[in-house]
């Protein structure tokens, strides 16, 4: 019963709890932005410095929190939860943490609302600031960018912890007793970060880019939409959210008598780490199994415009769709196939096992690393029914990239950002960067031997160009020693022919031959060894002379 509480106290308490909830959400979301937060201390409080702490109010976050609360306050059975999850560039998502603000029935009638409760709430916010930096999701959020982003979702009602996987841990941030109940703030966080996808990947045509405004397989259909934890603060997105000062709910406690005013915070501006859509790294992502479920993208006003990562660049490992959440790679696309990311369960089902059809007669260890390094050829043969696994990389500065198996022309697909799609083969031939007009100087004598089989004649270009150089002006490119400049050199040497030993068929054969004794072949390995053994005395003498 709260008849002992005066109406003023009750009003104050409700206000404190409401703003505490809003500040809690701000602290949590800001801690997952991926950047270091810095606010200034001030000896003169302003109207929005609730709980004597300088916590910036991001308007969109406040808006989402208010929307979730819908005028209610946390009460018994009605908790405010902030869910932090991770979403990869492939569309897989995983819940990382659930922060819960709960209220139970244990009342503390004696406590003074205006002073003690307020200060305890302030202390609890400080604890929250500290704890948000020590859960595993903090380090993940600091590294978000190309490969994954961190999203948040606020909901009100019953706490849903099932998405955290088995063995999740809980940390209690603190409690504050009030005359109407005890407020508890806690965090349940996932400790099993091995990425487990419950979906089978289906055959779907690749879609250019991913718009992150949908849920995938959310267990709760009525759940609110997710929002990224990185966005442009202060950007004009067409929606204007009332800041705290605009409303009449400024912090006026009995201690602070200064009038509300603009608060000045030095906060590092949150910015995207993924490049804008006009990217040099364009990744065509096979959206397999990204069965967009029924979720209506019931986004709040303007929130769809607020900095959702429209295009994911980089980091797609075609051979490992279950890309593990490891340290995000900076700078774009790793060569394919790459080594499994740190911690990847290599025994997980892989989409593409390039050497399925090849068997060495010797007992070559078929570890994942070995098979991958050998299969560096462009024919990443997938025995699995994932022929649509094509990844076409367009990079500003080239790296060796596997040639895709089937180059799908984008013309017949109605997709957004089609202008960024890779050009057809003919277009590449016409591209002056790929096929510059023959220079008047003599062509390099090495040129003829360097081209791969499919292309001949053209001085630099290749019909099998894996990447298009948009602009290449190497610095200090003039060299007196060689008769060509660096740019020409680069273009000429950019597509060396495949090493014969790396080509699967030849490689397999020669390995097999090498290891099997075959007197007909004079240079098989066993024979060579026998010859060397015969001459061992000569070799020993030679070694002696060196010492």
């Amino acid at each position, binding site marked *: 019963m709260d008849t002992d509480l005066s109406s003023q106290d009750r009003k104050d308490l409700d206000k404190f709890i409401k703003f505490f909830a809003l500040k809690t959400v701000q602290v949590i979301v800001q801690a997952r932005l991926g950047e270091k937060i810095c*606010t200034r201390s001030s*000896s003169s409080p302003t109207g929005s410095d609730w709980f004597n702490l*300088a916590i910036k109010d991001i308007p969109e976050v406040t808006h989402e929190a208010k929307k979730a609360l819908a005028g209610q306050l946390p009460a018994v059975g009605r908790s405010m939860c902030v869910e932090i999850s991770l979403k990869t560039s492939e569309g897989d998502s995983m819940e990382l943490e659930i922060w819960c603000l709960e209220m139970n029935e244990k009342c503390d009638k004696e406590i003074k609302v205006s002073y003690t409760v307020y200060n*305890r709430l302030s202390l609890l916010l400080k604890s929250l600031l500290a704890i948000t930096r020590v859960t595993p999701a903090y380090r993940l959020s600091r590294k978000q960018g190309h490969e994954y982003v961190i999203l948040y979702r606020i909901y009100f009602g019953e706490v849903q912890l099932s998405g955290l996987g088995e063995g999740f841990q809980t940390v209690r*941030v603190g409690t504050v007793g009030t005359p109407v109940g005890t407020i508890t703030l806690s965090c349940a966080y996932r400790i099993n970060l091995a990425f487990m996808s419950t979906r089978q990947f289906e055959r779907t045509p690749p879609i250019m880019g991913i718009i992150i405004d949908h849920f995938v397989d959310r267990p709760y259909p009525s759940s609110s939409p997710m929002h990224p934890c990185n966005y442009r603060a202060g950007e004009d997105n067409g929606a204007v959210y009332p800041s705290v000062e605009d409303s009449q709910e400024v912090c006026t406690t009995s201690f602070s008598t*200064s009038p509300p005013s603009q608060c000045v915070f030095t906060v590092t501006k949150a910015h995207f780490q993924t490049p804008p859509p006009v990217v040099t790294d364009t990744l065509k992502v096979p959206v397999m199994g990204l069965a967009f479920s029924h979720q209506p993208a019931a986004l709040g006003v303007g929130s769809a415009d607020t900095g959702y990562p429209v295009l994911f660049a980089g980091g797609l490992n075609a051979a490992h769709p279950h890309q593990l959440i490891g340290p995000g790679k900076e700078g774009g696309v790793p060569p394919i196939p790459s080594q499994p990311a740190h911690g990847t369960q290599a025994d997980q089902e892989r989409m593409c096992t390039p050497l399925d059809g090849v068997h060495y007669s010797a007992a070559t260890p078929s570890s994942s690393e070995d098979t991958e390094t050998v299969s560096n050829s462009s024919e990443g043969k997938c025995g699995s029914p994932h022929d649509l696994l094509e990844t076409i990389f367009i990079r500003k500065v080239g790296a060796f990239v596997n040639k895709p198996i089937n180059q799908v022309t984008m013309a017949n697909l109605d997709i957004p950002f089609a202008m960024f799609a890779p050009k057809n083969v003919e277009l590449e031939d016409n591209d002056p960067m790929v096929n510059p007009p023959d220079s008047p100087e003599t062509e390099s004598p090495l040129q003829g031997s360097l081209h791969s089989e499919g292309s001949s004649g053209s001085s630099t270009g290749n019909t099998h160009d894996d990447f298009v150089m948009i602009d290449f002006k190497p610095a200090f490119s003039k060299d007196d020693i060689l008769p060509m400049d660096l740019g020409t050199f680069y273009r000429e040497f950019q597509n060396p022919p495949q090493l014969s030993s790396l080509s699967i068929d030849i490689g397999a054969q020669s390995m097999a031959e090498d290891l099997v004794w075959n007197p007909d072949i004079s240079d098989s390995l066993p024979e060579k060894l026998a010859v060397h053994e015969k001459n061992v005395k000569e070799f020993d003498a030679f070694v002696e002379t060196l010492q």
Partner: protein
Amino acid sequence: MVGPGRICRCAPPRATPAMNCRAEVLEVSVEGRQVEEAMLAVLHTVLLHRSTGKFHYKKEGTYSIGTVGTQDVDCDFIDFAYVRVSSEELDRALRKAVGEFKDALRNSGSDGMGQISLEFYQKKKSRWPFPDECIPWELWTIKVNVVNLANEQERQICREKVGEKLCEKIINIVEITDSLGTSVTTTMRRLIKDTLAL
């Protein structure tokens, strides 16, 4: 006025703390070059919880409290980040004390054990000729064990392990603060009342 925290370096805690003084002890094992950052992380976290804005006394017996800003700090030698109060003066004072502690540890010998304490006390003015009274009400002691590592691989493991340990320490501090919360608030309230009564 509520007294500032005082840092006692390499000294045992007071043999007989005042009756109402709570004493908490935390232990960490770190490598030599991690000592400073580990100490700063723990001490700043404690101070974050015990810092308040500036009190401004106005007429009619009212007062207002300033705002405490915070900032994130990344450690260089430990895989760890923490939050501290945005106060350069406080940071300088802590760094000075921790630096002296680190030097004393290094010079003290090869056993590599030491402790640093952070004490919160109240200064009570006394009548002449008696000196002002310092009454501690909370004492945090951090015991440090310095380990020597042989190679870079061990150091890398140490970076991660110490980071995890510090996460646990922060959680400990928060738990302690939460459990002490009410009593400390009462203490602080009493202290402020005392101050205002002067």
